[in-house]
């Protein structure tokens, strides 16, 4: 697996740039990854990211619908927080694998 530098962090990533080990993640690292995709993280972003990490840890597949029903953000807000491919970008920043679902 290739390694990638985000700010002061060097982590193992897959061919799509997603973290290989969820445990390599930290809030500081998330900020650096987000910078690379043009997003400045707010508390709201972190709430969504933590929700995503929790779901993935529990082995649940993610969907836009589930995020919309999380009670944290509406689907509209989710698209505003992570423009141009929200689930992919949020997963990337959350340090979890690339989403595999179609909905």
């Amino acid at each position: 697996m290739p390694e990638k530098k985000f700010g002061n962090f060097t982590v193992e990533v897959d061919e799509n740039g997603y973290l290989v080990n969820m445990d390599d993640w930290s809030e500081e690292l998330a900020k650096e990854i987000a910078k690379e995709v043009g997003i400045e993280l707010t508390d709201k972003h972190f709430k969504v990211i933590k929700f995503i990490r929790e779901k993935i840890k529990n082995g649940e597949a993610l969907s836009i619908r589930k995020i919309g029903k999380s009670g944290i953000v509406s689907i509209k807000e989710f698209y505003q927080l992570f423009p141009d491919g929200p689930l992919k970008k949020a997963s990337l920043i959350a340090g979890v694998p690339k989403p595999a679902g179609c909905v």
Partner: protein
Amino acid sequence: MSEKLKKVSIICSKGTIDSVYAALILANGARMEGIEVDMFFTFFGLDAITKKKMDKLHVATVGNPALSMPGGIPFPTIIGMLPGIEAIVSAMMKKEMEKLDIPPVSEFLEMITASGGKIFACKLAVEMFKLKKEDLYDDLDGILTVGEFYERAAGSQIIFI
């Protein structure tokens, strides 16, 4: 890698579950990738944005040779003709979709609107079926002529379902 798709214009012309979901999944999937989306519902596809019908769509149990029973046993057309069978098969299909986290049509349309996708009805078909604006999906972005559809579709890929 070749250049990313910027916009798709999806025409939904049929009102069966399979056709409508193909259109909705492609539209929602495009938004998930950051691709702009226009959906244009015409002819029987209008059922998918007609409030009274959108969550009651059926799959065709007659004239659908690809339909099979659970386990892959062929579905005889003569059974598909029996009263109530189409509703039962359709309900089964919707239940399977829910298991995969695929929402009902009304919720799917709301998801697409929330994501920034646009939903349009075809003017000629709306007139033909004598529908009024209030019969249609609340967040409809407009009723378009074919010409207006093409104007909006400029530079996009057009998908006909």
